[in-house]
């Protein structure tokens, strides 16, 4: 059974003979009523809004409308791609940034106590108002994130803001500098400065929580016979003892040499060994390996699961 679909004219409630400006007027009137962000509690309107937007976008193209009227094309496939409405973000955890709680003064003490929400940056009313928050975005180096640092940013009013980056800060974390936002009105407290930190990656080190990861190239003789290798850490270099008979991929843990945040357990530096051959193996290496092979070699796949198949 086929349901007769509405024509774009019916969707907008205009006659097929309507002028462009009549169509626009009808669309505007419906959009004002149905826009999802103006009706955040009413999900039914969203579908209707999509329909009228699609119909309007279809008809506002003069050539498209002419061909539709002439029966050359139908009105299908003209729906706009899914578009994210403001309310989808404003209802998320970051959403309260723009929110305004004017009018809840009588309940704000309860809400602030119960749910940890401040009085909010009410604008426009003649009451004591907390100043707005100022947001900053700061890109810092990998080392600064591990060890902590002091940074200075310029504020919109050309002032400066000194930021102490705590050791162990993570990519995407936000620092709150209380009282460094916009001044309050009518004796209200100032807002906060919110500094979102992004951490640059490093060419040598990687990070996993509070652990620092490092890949260490070793020679084949160091792998077989063991040895002492100097390894860089963020607290200076340390000697690492390679155990006799170490394969590529073996992980060595340097206790307490990772990230050391003030109030968390210090992480470790985890060194992954990687056997590296010279770019062109010289004669001595080749003859040593030939001797190994002719004397029977060894089977690295003795316990390998791949043998079972």
């Amino acid at each position, binding site marked *: 059974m086929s349901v007769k679909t509405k024509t774009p004219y019916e969707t907008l409630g205009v006659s097929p003979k309507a002028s462009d400006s009549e169509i626009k007027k009808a669309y505007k009137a419906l959009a004002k009523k149905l826009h999802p962000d103006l009706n955040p509690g009413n999900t039914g309107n969203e579908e209707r809004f999509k329909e009228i937007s699609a119909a309007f976008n279809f008809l506002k193209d003069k050539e498209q409308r002419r061909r539709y009227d002439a029966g050359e094309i139908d009105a299908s496939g003209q729906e706009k791609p899914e578009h994210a409405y*403001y309310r989808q973000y404003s209802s998320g955890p970051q959403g309260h940034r*723009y929110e*305004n709680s004017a009018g809840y003064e009588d309940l704000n003490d309860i809400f602030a106590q*119960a749910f940890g929400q401040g009085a909010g940056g009410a604008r426009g009313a003649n009451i004591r108002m907390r100043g707005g928050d100022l*947001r900053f975005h700061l890109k810092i180096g990998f080392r600064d994130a591990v060890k902590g640092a002091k940074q200075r940013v310029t504020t919109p009013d050309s002032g400066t803001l000194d930021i102490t980056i705590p050791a162990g800060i993570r990519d995407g974390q936000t620092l709150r500098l209380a009282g460094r936002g916009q001044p309050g009105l009518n004796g209200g407290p100032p807002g906060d400065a*919110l500094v979102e930190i992004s951490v640059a990656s490093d060419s040598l080190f990687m990070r996993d929580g509070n652990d620092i990861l490092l890949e260490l190239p070793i020679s084949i003789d160091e792998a077989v016979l063991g040895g002492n290798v100097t390894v860089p850490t963020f607290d200076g270099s340390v000697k690492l003892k390679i155990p006799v008979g170490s394969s590529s991929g073996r992980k060595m843990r340097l206790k307490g040499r990772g990230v050391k945040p003030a109030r968390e357990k210090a992480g470790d530096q985890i060194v992954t060994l990687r056997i590296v051959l010279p770019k062109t193996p010289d004669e001595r290496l080749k003859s040593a390996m030939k001797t190994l092979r002719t004397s029977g070699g060894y089977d690295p796949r003795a316990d390998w699961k791949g043998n079972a198949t």
Partner: protein
Amino acid sequence: MMTEKEVLSSVSGMSRSSLKICISQSWVTPAQATEGAMFDELDVARLRLIAELRRDMGVNDDAVPIILSLIDQLNAAQRRLRALDRAIGQDPDRRRSLADWLKSVTVQD
């Protein structure tokens, strides 16, 4: 995070001069970085809403902040109601007794 340039190419109906107005009027408050303003998803969705208000609904620049302010207040109110709802919890007995109590103390305006 998006730069000003990326915002202009992804929000249809937002011109450079419109974006300037949005920032100077504090309709959106992007983060400040050494490279210039940086916009997160919330900022971009808000800019898209502003663009639709001005272009599709004929809202003029005097009315934009009024509408934004009302939407912001509505969102705050809804968030508080949701928080309250979560705090009350799903226990049907508690919900019913709370409803009864509210009915008994509500003064009809």
